[in-house]
C-alpha cells in the first residue's frame, strides 16, 4: 500500500494546485464485488480530495466493519487508516480528532455499522458535532455477512431471499437532523455529479457533516422488489437541486436567476451554491428538511441533495474550549507542572 509517486508523468495527466495527480489520492485495488456501489463512492472521495487540493497525509480515514468499512483501504493510500470494530468508528474518530484538531477526518460506515450495532455511537457523535465527514454507504443490507436485512431496509422491500421486510426503516438523515447534525445530505453512488460537490462541502464544513449515500449491493440486494437496487433508486430519485461547490479562491462567475439559487459560505470562505428545483426550499431550515424528507417518503421517492447546512456551527473543540494547538503536539514543558507545584500539592494533603 505504500505509494510511490511515479517520476515520469504523462504530460496530459492533470495535476492539482499542490502538484499531485489523481493517482496520488488512490488506494490499493478494491476487492469488493464488481459493480458494488461502494467503489463509486471511493472514486468520488478521491476526486473530491484531488480537486480540493488536500494533502493526503493530512487526512485520517476511519471505519467500522463491513464491506463499506473496508473501502478506506481503496482510497487515499498516503493517509493513515483505521479499520476499527463493528459500529464503533465514531468513538475512535472522536479520540483521534481530540488528539489533533488540525487533520481532516473521514469516517466511512455501512447501514448495519451505523443504524444497528453503532446506533448509540452515531447518535452521540452527531450530538457532539465532531468535526468530520461521516459517510454511510447505505445498501439496505449487511453485505459482508451475506445479505441480511439491515435497519435501513424499507418496509416490505424484498431482499434476494425473497422475503418482504416486515419492519419500518430507520431514516438516518432524519435521525441526524433530529439530533442536531450541522450538515446533512443524501446522495446516490451512481450520481457522481451530485456526490462529489457534497463531499467537498462536507470536508470544508466545520462540524459534523453527514452524507447518507444509497449504494446498491449488487450481490445481495439488487433484485426486483428491493428498494435499494440500482434500478429502483434511479426510477424513484428526487433531487432538491444541483449543488455547486466553489472553493474560496475561485471567483463566482456563473449567474442564476434569483430565487432559484442560494449560496452558503463555509468557515474557510468556500461557497456551496444550490440551484434549487424547489424555490421555497431553505437548507438552513431544519424543520423544513424533516418535513421534506417525510413528504418524499410518503410519495415513495428517494430524496437526494443538500438537506441542511449550518455554516456557523460550533464543533467539539470549540464546545470544550481546547487549545488551538493539536493536543498531541504539547510536550513536557506544556503539560507537566513540575516538582515545585507537586511540593505544594503534597503540602495541601498534610
Amino acid at each position, binding site marked *: 500500500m*505504500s505509494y510511490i509517486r511515479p517520476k515520469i508523468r504523462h504530460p496530459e495527466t492533470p495535476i492539482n494546485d499542490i502538484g499531485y495527480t489523481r493517482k496520488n489520492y488512490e488506494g490499493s485495488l478494491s476487492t469488493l464485488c464488481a459493480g458494488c456501489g461502494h467503489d463509486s463512492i471511493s472514486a468520488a472521495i478521491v476526486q473530491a480530495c484531488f480537486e480540493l487540493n488536500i494533502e493526503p497525509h493530512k487526512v485520517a480515514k476511519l471505519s467500522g466493519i463491513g464491506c463499506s468499512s473496508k473501502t478506506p483501504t481503496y482510497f487515499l493510500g498516503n493517509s493513515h487508516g483505521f479499520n476499527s470494530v463493528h459500529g464503533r468508528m465514531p468513538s475512535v474518530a472522536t479520540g483521534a480528532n*481530540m488528539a489533533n484538531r488540525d487533520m481532516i477526518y473521514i469516517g466511512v460506515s455501512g447501514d448495519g455499522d451505523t443504524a444497528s450495532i453503532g446506533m448509540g*455511537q452515531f447518535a452521540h457523535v452527531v450530538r457532539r458535532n465532531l468535526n468530520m465527514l461521516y459517510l454511510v454507504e447505505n445498501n439496505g443490507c449487511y453485505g459482508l455477512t451475506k445479505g441480511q436485512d439491515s435497519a435501513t431496509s424499507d418496509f416490505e422491500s424484498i431482499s434476494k431471499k425473497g422475503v418482504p421486510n416486515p419492519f419500518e426503516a430507520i431514516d438516518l438523515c432524519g435521525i441526524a437532523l433530529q439530533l442536531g447534525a450541522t450538515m446533512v445530505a443524501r446522495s446516490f453512488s451512481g450520481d457522481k455529479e451530485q456526490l462529489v460537490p457534497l463531499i467537498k462541502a462536507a470536508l470544508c464544513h466545520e462540524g459534523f457533516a453527514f452524507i447518507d449515500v444509497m449504494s446498491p449491493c449488487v450481490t445481495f440486494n439488487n433484485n426486483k422488489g428491493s428498494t435499494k437496487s440500482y434500478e429502483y433508486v434511479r426510477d424513484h430519485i428526487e433531487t432538491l437541486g444541483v449543488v455547486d461547490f466553489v472553493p474560496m479562491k475561485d471567483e463566482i462567475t456563473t449567474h442564476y436567476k434569483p430565487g432559484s439559487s442560494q449560496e452558503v459560505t463555509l468557515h474557510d470562505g468556500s461557497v456551496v451554491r444550490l440551484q434549487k428545483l424547489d424555490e421555497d426550499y431553505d437548507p438552513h431550515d431544519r424543520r423544513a428538511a424533516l418535513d421534506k424528507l417525510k413528504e418524499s417518503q410518503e410519495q415513495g421517492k428517494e430524496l437526494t441533495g443538500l438537506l441542511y447546512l449550518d455554516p456557523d456551527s460550533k464543533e467539539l473543540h470549540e464546545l470544550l474550549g*481546547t487549545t488551538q494547538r493539536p493536543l*498531541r503536539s504539547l510536550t*513536557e514543558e506544556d503539560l507537566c507542572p513540575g*516538582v515545585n507545584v507537586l511540593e505544594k500539592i503534597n503540602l495541601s494533603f498534610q
Partner: protein
Amino acid sequence: MSHAVNDFVIKFANVNGTGSASANTLFAKSLFRMGLAISPKNIFPSNIQGLPTWYEVRVNGDGYTGRRDDIDIMVGMNPQSMAKDIKEVVSGGYFVYDNSKPLDLRLMRDDINFIGLPLTDICLREYDDARQRQLFKNVIYVGALAAFLNIEFDVLTKLIHDQFKAKEKLIGPNVHALELGFQYASDNFQAPWPVRVERIESSKSRILIDGNTACALGAIYAGATVAAWYPITPSTSVVDAYETYAKRLRIDPGSGEKNFAIVQAEDELSAMGMVIGANWNGARAFTATSGPGVSLMSEFLGLAYFAEIPVVLINIQRAGPSTGMPTRSQQSDILACAYASHGDTKHVLLFPSSPRECFDMTVASFDLAERLQTPVILLSDLDLGMNDWISEPFAWDDSRRYDRGKVLSAEQLESLEQPFGRYLDVEGDGICYRTYPCTHPTKGAFFTRGTSRDPYAIYTEDGSLYVENMERLNKKWETTKSYVPAPSFYADNGARYGMIYYGTTAAPAEEALDKLANTGIALDGMRIHAFPFNKEVENFIKNHEMLFVVEQNRDGQMQTLLVTECGVAPSKLKSILNYDGMPVTAHVIQEKIRNALPEIDNVLPLKSKTIKN
C-alpha cells in the same frame, strides 16, 4: 476492649447526606497531624440521601494501616442503625450518642459506657437556622471527642483555619462549635478516657490522600491530554480530580484555553474507543472505570492488543459479579483484566498498594503503554481509591522525560534504508516502530486494523503470517517482563513457607506477617506489583515449599494466574481469601493461616528437605 494509648477503632454511624463527612474527616485528620497512623474507611450505600453510612477509623501507634474490626468507640448518630451499632461495640467500649431524646432502654448494655451528649439541645439553643443546627451537631461531637480522646485542640483549630481559608466567615462558628463540645464533655464526664491518643513525633513527612486523586495527579504529571470516561462508582473521582487539577494546572496562560480534553462518553465502549483513537493519533489518553465498564471495553481491549495501540485503563475494582455490591471493595477483576477480550490476549497489569504508588504507577502506565504499544491496566480498588490513606509524599524529577516509545519522525522516515513496516520486528524485542498519522507526505502511512496482517500492515489470511505475528506478540510479552516493576519483599529470610499478596491486601498481610512472627510462625512475604510476572516472582515461589496467596475475591484469581503463568502445581499455592466487600483485616489473615498450617504440615512433614538430601 484495649485500654491502650494510640490503639483503638472508632466508628461513626451517620445518615447519608447530613454533612457528617467533613466533620469526620476533620476528626481523622487531627489524629494524622498528631503523628498517628490512621486508616479511615467510608462505608456507604449506593444511594444519595437518607440511608445509613459509617465512617470507621482505626488509630494505631505502630504504623499499621490495615483495617481492624473490633469497635472500641461508636459515635451513634443514626437512630435507624442504632440497635446494630450498639451491639457492635466491644465489651468495655464506649457508645456516644445524642441524649436530647432518651435512649430506648431495651438497647442498653451494661458492659459498655453510654456517653450522652445533648447535641440537638445545644444546637437548638445556639443556632436559628435549620441547616446550621444539622451541620454543627457533627462539629460539636468532634469537639467532645477531642476532650475524651486527648486530641490537641490547637490541631483542630488549625485544621478549621486551613479548611476555610477561602471562606473566613465560617472559621469562627466552626471553632465555636468545637468548643461547645469540648466544654460539655469536660464539664460532665471524666476526660480524657483511658483510651486516648498521644502525639508521636516523627521526622518522616507523610500525606493523607485517597488513591483516586493520586491517580489523577499521575495522569496530569504523565502528560495525559485526553480523558474519556463514563461515570461509575468507585472510579468517578479519578476523572473528577483530573478535571479539578487540569483546570488549575493545564490552562494555557496566554489564551485561557485548555491543554486537555475531557469527553464524557455515552458508555464505556465509547470511552475506550476514544482512548484508542487518541493514542493512535499520538496523544496520551486514558479512561477510568470499574468492573461493569471493563466488561464493556473488552472487545476494544482486544483490538488495542492486536493492533498494538497504547491504552491506559484505570480500573477501580468493586465487588462483582454484575452490579454486585457497587459500594464495596474487592480484588476480583484480576482474571477479567489479565485476559480481557476474545482470542489469545493478555494485558499488562499494575497493582498499587498506596496513594504514592497510585501516582507513580499511573505515570508508569503511560510510559509502559507507549513503550510496549499495548493496553496497561492499573488495578486499584474502592478501598484504596475512595478512602484516605497515609502515604509517602509524591515525588517528581524535573529532568524526567516521557518515554514515548518507538515512534518514527518525518526525518527518521526520510532516512530509512528499507521500506517502513509497521509490524516489522526490527530490533528483535517484539516491539515494532509506529508512526503517527500526518507525519510525512508520502512515507509511513499504514492501515491499522483488527484483522490479521503482514509486517507491512497489509491484510492477510495467510496462516503462517498470522502465526508469525502472534509469536512476535509473545516475544513482546517476554520483553514486557523486563519493563514492569519487580515484586518487593517484606521478608525473604529462607522460611519454609511464604506469603504472596498485592494491592490493598498488603497492609493487613504485612501486619499479619509481623504478628505471626511474634508467635513463632515466621513466613516470608512478597508483594506482587505487576503482571506479567518477572523472574523474581517465579524464584520466590520456587524457593518456598508452600505459599499462601492472600487476596480479596472468592475464586483465588491471583492464585490461578500464578499457577497458569508460572507453571506451579496448584497445591503449592494455598488461597487465603476474604471477599465480603469490607477490606480484609490482619486478624482474619492470621487466623486463616494458623488454621491452615497444621493441615499443611501433614502434607509436607517438617523434615522433608533433609530426607531428600
